[in-house]
């Protein structure tokens, strides 16, 4: 019964995502940027020892750090605020449907949208790599698969964070603003802040003790470090990716696994405080 209610919620939410063209937008964004990146990356890395698909995965990692959280927040910010505004949340909660079931159904549908988008984007990049170099590209399939499932985990974390923003704002416009703010903070400003701190610290205690943890604690940075450290193409990475060498791989992996659960719990707590 509980599963059926989550399933029908997920179904109707996915239908809404299709009709609102979120699926189309997500797929188009991921495919377009993946193709551009792999075309550009193939030229630059032509003489490297690493196989071309692994190089592409390294470029795709840097792309996905920006795009996956953005897509996740775009499709999730309306989840609760929109229902509050339309007056349907009140109605839903008079049904034999719990807040957890409603949230899980929305999460499942929106995660499906993210999954379809990343598979389409990465798949397009993989096809391009195979067309360019033939069977040799198969060496990079492991790295590509890792990129897919870690992107899904990253997406799950940011969808639930989007739900949390949605429950906090209670109005779609406010929720959109909070979502964009979160994206800027977690994806752009966080790294800039760390870089500035590392430069100012000049190899001191911050750089050796605090900085590695600070990187792992942010799910987006954990995603980047995990994929770069796990692949052979670390050399192709730039910026903070260089730090990947010094961090044990279980740390970013644990961060990637824990964040979706933590974010879902935070979203549920915030949603529980929405009075109707």
């Amino acid at each position, binding site marked *: *019964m509980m599963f*059926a*209610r989550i399933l*029908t*919620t997920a*179904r*109707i939410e996915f*239908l*809404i995502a299709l*009709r*609102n063209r979120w699926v189309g937008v997500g797929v188009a964004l991921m495919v377009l940027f993946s193709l551009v990146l792999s075309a550009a990356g193939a030229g630059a890395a032509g003489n490297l020892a690493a196989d071309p698909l692994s190089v592409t995965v390294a470029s795709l990692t840097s792309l996905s750090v920006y795009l996956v959280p953005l897509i996740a927040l775009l499709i999730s910010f309306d989840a609760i605020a929109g229902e509050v505004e*339309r*007056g*349907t949340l*009140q*109605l*839903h*909660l*008079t*049904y*034999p*449907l719990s807040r957890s079931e409603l949230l899980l159904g929305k999460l499942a549908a929106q995660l499906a949208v993210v999954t379809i988008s990343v598979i389409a984007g990465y798949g397009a990049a993989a096809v391009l790599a195979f067309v360019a170099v033939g069977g040799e590209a198969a060496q990079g399939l492991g790295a590509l698969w890792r990129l897919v499932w870690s992107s899904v985990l990253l997406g799950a974390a940011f969808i639930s964070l989007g739900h949390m923003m949605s429950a906090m704002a209670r109005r779609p416009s406010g929720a959109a603003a909070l979502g964009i703010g979160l994206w800027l903070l977690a994806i752009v400003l966080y790294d800039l802040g760390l870089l500035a701190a590392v430069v100012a610290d000049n190899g001191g205690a911050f750089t050796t003790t605090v900085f590695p943890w600070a990187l792992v604690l942010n799910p987006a940075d954990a995603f980047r470090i995990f994929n770069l450290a796990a692949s052979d193409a670390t050399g192709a990475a730039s910026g903070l990716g260089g730090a990947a060498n010094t961090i044990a791989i279980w740390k970013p992996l644990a961060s990637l696994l824990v964040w979706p659960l933590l974010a879902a719990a935070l979203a549920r707590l915030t949603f529980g405080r929405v*009075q*109707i």
Partner: protein
Amino acid sequence: MLTLSRLTKRYGAQAALDDVSLAVAAGERVALLGHNGAGKSTLMKLVLGLISADAGDIAIAGHAPGSAVARALTAYLPENAAFHPALTGREQIGHFLRLRGEPAARADALLERVGLGDAARRRIGTYSKGMRQRIGLAQALIGAPRLMVLDEPTSGLDPVSRREFYGILDDLAAQGTAILLSSHALSEVEARTDRIVILSRGQQVAEGTLNSLRSDAGLPLMVTLHPLAGQDAAAAAAFPEAVQNGGVFSFPCPQTDKQAVLTRLVAASGQIDDFDIHPPSLDDIYAHISRRAA
């Protein structure tokens, strides 16, 4: 089916509901009347288990509001619910059916029943306001509910739709569904309810059938008459209590004096061109009761 006893809900220092008791039996239609902010919505949210009371008890067929059994027995039509414009009527009702554990294939029959059979495959975004209200009603009909809570169900409906709407409620009541609906105008609920409860500032100020409210209010009838040409002075002599306004005479008449006034009108028929006797309108009665309470 529904029992409220000594229900109180406060928001800060202000009492949204103050010691309200009410019972709705199976098959009974009860209208909850009050101005905006009188406590109607608060009462409904309490009954639905969306919020909890500060004092008093609610039982839905013996179960606590918001409990699994109470939710399964209760249907709700929110005021101005806007269903997602991207979905079709059939998809939206199919979803609500599945949430109640029923096959989605029953959506078409439900939509047919509320007069949306032809629009089932169209997106809700293309529906008129009345059609959207019917989608709300269709979801409230799922699973033959024992208690139906309707928040301002007829506001914004045209008179024909409103009549059809009450027709569906009559059928439900005949099958034993207890119905609690709210409205801000007595003229909207008309004689289609068995009992009327009037709330004012969280307090229950009147309860009864429309006729008992009418006699309680004790409002006078209003008599208007047009004298024949040149008979103004004679008419004024025959009806000294009348007020003249642009050639029209009018005066109030207590319910008990109806016959006497009629006799006088007949006696004065030589001076009178035309006359009317108006009973107090429903809105007059409602305004009078609300004002008396305040």
